[in-house]
């Protein structure tokens, strides 16, 4: 990427961020926030961090954008006014001064760190032992699999935490339907969702498979899957399950459970989360497929929100 492109990208990122912050209309702000997220993803791409770019665009722009739109429609349905009063000038000045000072300090600190990465050779030296080519997958699924294992439980816990917000009368009904209210829009989204869900399935499967050697992996695959589920749910192509459905529960815990079980099997034969020689790739791909499926279901239900009584939604 050329310097000119990067400069333009920087200006656009700052510009969309400013518009998203200062525009008064909430919907416009969301639109610019989504654009901002996508541009940020491009910036990660320009720096060669493809995995981060995928996550930023999927979660930072996509899922967060959907969440913000849903929040807006729920607030509107409640009759809440979505506007913030003008902040006091001294508060704005103080915040600007504090943020500038912190950013300057942080920039000085970051710039004083000598460039170069001494960990990359360490990772490269270890990669042959697990038979994969993508160092990010190597770090996430082998060298620091413990972190990833715990994170998969954090994601599962996040959904349980959202569920615990369910009003007493609503449990265990499905979440508020994401189905669109406008018949014409529902029709379009329905056909689109029916078309896109199989595509998302294939793409997720591909992303997980290719993650062994190139950018991709369980999280990216799961995110694509969640996107497919959400679009299909918005178009009414699929319904959302009840929170106490045993099949749903198994789908949610499958990924973390398989990960934990394989980790404990390693402990039985040697070390917790160690893969026996020659089996690393097979075990990692197994974990990633199950994990991607669970992540997809969990993310989609996280966006859908807590169980709610029919008729209270937007």
């Amino acid at each position, binding site marked *: 990427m050329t310097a000119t492109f990067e400069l333009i990208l920087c200006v656009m990122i700052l510009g969309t961020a400013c518009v998203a912050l200062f525009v008064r209309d909430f919907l416009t702000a969301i639109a610019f926030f989504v654009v901002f997220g996508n541009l940020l993803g491009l910036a990660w791409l320009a720096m060669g961090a493809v995995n981060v770019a995928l996550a930023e665009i999927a979660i930072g722009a996509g899922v967060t954008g959907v969440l913000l739109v849903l929040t807006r429609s729920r607030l509107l349905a409640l009759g809440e006014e979505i506007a913030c009063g003008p902040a006091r000038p001294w508060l704005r000045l103080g915040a600007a001064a504090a943020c500038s000072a912190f950013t300057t*300090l*942080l920039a*000085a*600190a*970051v710039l*004083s*760190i000598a460039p170069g*990465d*001494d*960990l990359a050779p*360490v*990772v490269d030296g*270890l990669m042959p032992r697990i038979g994969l080519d993508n160092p990010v997958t190597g*770090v996430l699924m*082998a*060298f*620091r*699999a*413990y*972190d990833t294992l*715990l*994170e998969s*439980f*954090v994601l*599962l*816990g*996040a959904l*349980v*935490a959202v*569920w*615990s*917000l*369910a009003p*007493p*009368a*609503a*449990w*265990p009904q499905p979440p508020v339907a994401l189905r669109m209210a406008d018949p014409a829009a529902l029709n379009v989204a329905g056909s689109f969702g029916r078309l896109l869900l199989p595509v998302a399935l294939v793409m997720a499967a591909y992303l997980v498979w290719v993650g062994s050697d190139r950018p991709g992996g369980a999280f990216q695959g799961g995110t694509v899957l969640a996107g497919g589920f959400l679009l299909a749910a918005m178009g009414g192509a699929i319904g959302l399950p009840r*929170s*106490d459905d*045993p099949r749903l*529960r*198994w789908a*949610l*815990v499958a990924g*973390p*459970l398989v990960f*934990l079980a394989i*980790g*404990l099997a*390693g*402990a*039985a034969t*040697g*070390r*917790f*989360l*160690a*893969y026996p020689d020659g089996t690393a790739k097979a075990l990692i791909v197994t974990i990633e497929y199950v994990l991607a499926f669970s992540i997809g279901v969990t993310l989609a239900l996280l966006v859908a929100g807590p*169980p709610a009584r029919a008729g209270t939604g937007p």
Partner: protein
Amino acid sequence: MSPLDLLVAAPLAFMVAALVAGQGGRWLILAAGPVMLALSAWLVVLPPGVAHLVGDWDLPLGILLRADGVARLLVPATSACFVAVALYAWHEFSPKAGAETARAHTFWPMLYLMWGGSNAGYLTTDLFNLYVTIEMVSLAAVAMAAMGSLAAGLQYFLIALVGSLAYLLGVALLASHYDTVDATLLAVRARPDLPTLMAITVMTAGLLVKTALFPLHGWLPPAHAAAPAPASALLSAVVIKLGFVILLRLWFEAFAEIIRPAAMDLLGGMGALAILYGSVQAIRQERLKLLVAYSTVAQLGYLFLAFPLIANAQNPAEPWAAVLVHAVSHMLAKAAMFLAAGLMLKAVAGDRISDLAGLARAMPLSVTAFALAAISLAGLPPSGGFTAKFLLLHAAIEQGRVVPAAVLVIGGLLGAVYLFRPLSVAFSGSAAPAVRAEAPLRVAAPLALASLAIALGFAGMTLIELSSVAAPPAVAGPVQAEPGR
């Protein structure tokens, strides 16, 4: 198999089981309790210096787990708290309790997530791994706080998020600067330059917010006071300890060579103010649970008052033991107090201290549990709280530091004042209110925890020996084998 892995893996397995079991999730504690207590006991009796790398991946990339003194003291205490709280919550978060079916499903997975996260945090030396564990604990804590008051839960969520992000920013700076985030390696590699100081500052600030040290305590009293009693007990006893443990790892292990005495004194000063402010606020409260919550603000102060005392001591092992014993006895006593308070307030169907009149006659066992917990919290002998405060006072006098010594004495007096008030009300009045009998398990849980806090007062030497196992060089003196490999 090693308890270092199983102490984390077992609660996570129980979390999965609780989700699959659905309404029957509460039954799992009958299996989880004995398993976790046995694993904790196994950890305590491990030979000194036990440590291993997860998956056998070497440092600087891998993650080192070890059984040091901090873990050997906090893991068993945490397990005791979780078991007692779970038995207490057995009836509260059950499908039969009417409208609370969502919580019958969600409380138990959250409990196990918090349990696994706490243990993982005590056992690891990896600063990024610690970030993951604090996320596990914070997430479960926010969900539990929101069960009482959505507003307090949301406020807590935002605070916890800001704290996590600040901590993560510091971890990122350290990772790119030193190519490792392992505390034992950073202890050797760290230099006092701008990125390192910046990282220490933002990480410490983030953790102090999460630990609610004065003046960053504002979120704690509403969140802890509004939650249901079992949730309050876990929030006040267990959750805030993890941030404190990470601070110990940072200040006395990873960056022990870098941190200046002035910074230690600043943290100690904040601790002293926390003791005074929290105690005065506790004295002023009219509602029992807010009193107990402000007592947490005050008691947290002692943990940080000890920082300069450890750093300046001739024999740092003594104040080091004191701070760990204080953490453990506060954990047990505070959990007991919130559980007992929950029973007492439920019995009188009120939330004010004045509602408690005559309760000592109506529910003597619960008031006894409250009183035993109060003895340990106020630092009266014999109790774990007394041992800790005595050791701290001893260290302060030995170093000729008047201010910490004075704060310790005044804090003890104020503690006695605010804790005596609800007790005196409970013992006052001529007529005992009519009270419905509670299930024996619910009465026994706080009593057992409070008795443990008292019993710690008779195990002083054992606790001091345990706390010095594989203590960081800054605490154990310069002659110390490098931990791990």
